């Protein structure tokens, strides 16, 4: 009798286990709190972006976890990313926000970087675009007149040779413009102020800053937009920026001026840093050891979030009318974009040394 009872108990147990399994797979073990490391100070671009997204994550992740933003500024995001690399838990309770200033030092082999993107998987990547514009007094009405800029020295307020402006500086070089960067601007905004003061003759802003501050200048004939950097479409081709459909892309302007498509090492460097700086400008990463069911739960939540009409509307205001990327494809694209071949590294370090006397 006792044996039979044992058997019944055992089978009951095993059946309940079997029954419980699929239920568990469906409801991933999502922690009740997610600590989101933002390696920048409060109120910066990435911080504002993260704080805009956080409530949507809470809403769309099945168990509605609390998302706590932890700012860890320092080293232009290197400090925070290093700490995250060392300490992040792999149970889905931690994630990291990154920006161009997290990716560029990694690609350029900065000594301080101790993180490695192999150990992280992206949940989502938000692109941004950018526009190059010049002073009205130069005799240029649009990109069609770009030849008139030949031989003119154009001061440009820049944060530094290895900052977000890096691909833009390469683009200027490829177009044969004599741009003289003045480094040490505290932000892109400070560069714009130098342009408004008339000190800088050429300037560049990312989409949201352009829409908020430069469009007014253009309408009052205080700035002439030349070209946009364009956006990467699903096939990996550069197309016109949906925020600026009337502006040609850098590639169009190049083709118009030189009668051929851009190519060569310079263009490879441009494309890499354009992808890292703009196409994948803001990203969310989680440790790759996070259980797969949690990762896929997060991914599908992000997918649902991106379909929310309110999110789309708000995000157009915050970053521009762009499609964020999510899923396994994104992971592959990003990994590709971040890999710098030895030849490319040699080229870029030589170029920085020759052009700006900057030693990597």
């Amino acid at each position, binding site marked *: 009798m006792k044996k039979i009872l044992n058997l019944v108990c055992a089978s009951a147990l095993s059946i309940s286990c079997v029954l419980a399994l699929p239920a568990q797979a469906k409801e991933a073990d999502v922690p009740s709190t997610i600590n989101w490391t933002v390696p920048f100070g*409060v109120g910066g671009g990435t911080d504002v972006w993260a704080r805009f997204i956080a409530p949507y994550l809470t809403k769309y992740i099945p168990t509605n976890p609390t998302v706590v933003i932890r700012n860890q500024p320092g080293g232009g995001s290197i*400090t925070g990313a290093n700490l995250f690399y060392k300490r992040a838990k792999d149970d889905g309770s931690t994630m990291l926000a990154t920006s161009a200033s997290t990716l560029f030092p990694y690609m350029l082999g900065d000594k301080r970087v101790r993180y490695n993107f192999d150990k992280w998987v992206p949940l989502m990547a938000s692109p941004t675009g950018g526009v190059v514009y010049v002073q009205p007094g130069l005799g240029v009405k649009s990109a069609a007149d770009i030849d008139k800029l030949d031989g003119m020295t154009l001061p440009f307020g820049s944060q530094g040779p290895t900052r977000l402006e890096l691909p833009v500086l390469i683009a200027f070089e490829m177009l044969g413009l004599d741009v003289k960067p003045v480094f040490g601007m505290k932000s892109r905004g400070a560069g714009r102020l130098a342009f408004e003061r008339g000190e800088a003759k050429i300037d560049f802003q990312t989409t949201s800053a352009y829409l908020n501050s430069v469009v007014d200048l253009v309408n009052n004939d205080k700035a002439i937009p030349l070209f946009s950097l364009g956006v990467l479409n699903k096939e990996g081709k550069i197309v016109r920026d949906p925020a600026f459909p009337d502006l040609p892309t850098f590639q169009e302007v190049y083709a118009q001026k030189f009668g051929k498509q851009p190519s060569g090492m310079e263009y490879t460097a441009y494309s890499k840093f354009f992808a890292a700086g703009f196409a994948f400008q803001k990203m969310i990463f989680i440790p790759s050891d996070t259980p797969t069911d949690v990762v896929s739960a997060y991914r599908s939540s992000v997918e649902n979030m991106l379909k929310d009409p309110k999110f789309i509307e708000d995000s157009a205001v915050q970053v521009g009318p762009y499609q964020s990327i999510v899923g396994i494809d994104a992971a592959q694209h990003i990994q590709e974009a971040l890999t710098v071949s030895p030849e490319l590294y040699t080229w870029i370090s030589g170029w920085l040394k020759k052009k700006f006397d900057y030693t990597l």
Partner: protein
Amino acid sequence: MAVLLSALDQILSLTHLIYLVGGVLVGLVVGIIPGLGGIAGMSLLLPFLYGMEPSVGLGMLMGLVAVIPTGDTFTSVLMGIPGSSSSQATVMDGFPLAKKGQAARALSAAFLCSMVGGVVGAIVLSVFILVARPVVLAFSSAELFMLTLLGLSVVAALSGGNLFKGLAACGFGLLIGSVGSAPATGEFRFTLGIDYLYDGIPLVVVGLGIFALPEIISLLVQNKAIASTPNKLGHGLMQGFKDVFANLPLVGKSSVFGSLIGAIPGLGGSVVDWMTYSFAMNGSKDTSQFGKGDIRGVIAPESANNACASGSMIPTLLFGIPGSGSAAVFLGGMLLLGLQPGVSMITTNLDLTYTIIWSLALANILGAIFCISFTRPISLLTYVKFSILAPIILTLILFAAYQATRSLGDFMVLGAIATVGVMMKGANWPRPAFLIGFVLSSGAENYFFQSIQFYGSSWFLRPGVIALAALIVLGFVLPPMLKKRRLAKASTQPKTGLEPEEPSVKTVSATDWVLLAVLGGAGLYALVDVWNMSTLTKAFPIISIAIVLFSVAMLIVKYIREQHQRVASNLTTDLVYIVGFFMIAYGYYTLGFVTTTFVFSFLFLRYLAKATYLKSSTIAICLVIFLVVLGRIMNIEYPEGYFDPYFFDVVNRLF
């Protein structure tokens, strides 16, 4: 005008007032606790902010930002800890006043000035913002460079009797300020391969190291109450008000100057207090009491720093370029509310701008009233025996320093700067000169190269540059020199009971020599380190090094040639305390901040301060509760160390 009044009507609504008062209270708390500032306050208000009605949200944020320079006066005056970068000059005379038992007088004067300064700033803002755009744009990199020179010229007034000591200290500050990336090239200098130094040294850490720690050490050596002389002025509140009314022109001048400097992006609020401090000195007949407790040394910077916070709203609102740290926080809040700064703030969103300005004025008034009502009880702290306060103050200083970058480097650099600070205090070198050099270092270098690159060599012919150059010579360099000559003339005549400007006997101590060796050695090391870098990277450090080495050489020559009386130095005692500090700081980091706070405070109070078991454990427990609650509410992290995780495990289980 109609917009102005309708905005007033709006902020007087109940919802608006409640949130504004909430913002003010949070602002006062984060202002009073040293090391916290707008950012900590923001993290507390953020949960409310998202999805809030913009005008109400802005009122709350403005309440927060406006009163931070009011609240931070408490620790500056009472403990000699600069609560934030905007009240460093307040320490100079506020703390000596507290030592004289006149803390309440200094505080009430400071709060009234803050209120006046804030309101004047709001008035200037409301008119100036409509026409400010071209004015702000007129300040190009060349004019900004001249403004940094204007700041640096204050050193002349602050060096007291010995210009070379001032120059050496200032040059050393410039050199320390150039640690990190070179603005003109992006290359890194003087990093010694330490990650911490790549970002440069944080201002908070320098301020705490140069002022707060040396004061604590000297008070510990004496072990009396902070207020060592009994107060003859009653509780002093009324005296403080009277002082303000007696110095109204200074208040007005400092407020207007503060709001204008705040309005120019790029210079920041951290130097305006020193500039107005030297105004106060230049405008007084008798400067002998400055640095020893002259109330004018409190009035000028306190009028200026609140006005500066108002002025810094101009570049924030018009250009989206924050003029100061708290303005940056405000800007972040605006973006979260879905508001974009720009011209629209004086066209379509003018009503919001006026809401901001009214909130600013109201917050300043409320903040000052709250502070004044707490002044009497809080200033009694200065009558407590210092050894009882010491562990509390030390914990506060470590807490404040750790908020800078949250790494061990904060503690170590704090100790290193404090070593220099202790020596400078001991040998009577002007510490403000060091701080001003440090604060203006990056601006001076950056704007110099930018103006050369934008304008070539013709930049010094710009009218703004010439006007500022004239202002520097007439306003800052000449007055102290003329005064010196006048005094020199006066001193040849028989004295009539007046105290001499400086001790007539020239003195030198071992500390002087050690300090000369440290500065000279640092200068030479830096020179070797930077020699092989690109021109734009090394040019500015070499200028600073030249200033340091030249002044050091001149001082050495002077000490050898002229007759100096040798005085004893208590360098050894001070250095023992510094070593003690390093050990304690290391303990806080490796053993766990909260646990060490308890153990250290308890042991210190029981065995060194000889307090009773009950008193020692009560104070230690209160400190721990304070830290835990603060950490919970404001999302602050402490160094975990070995023991804190266990401690927090227990706490989390209990609550």
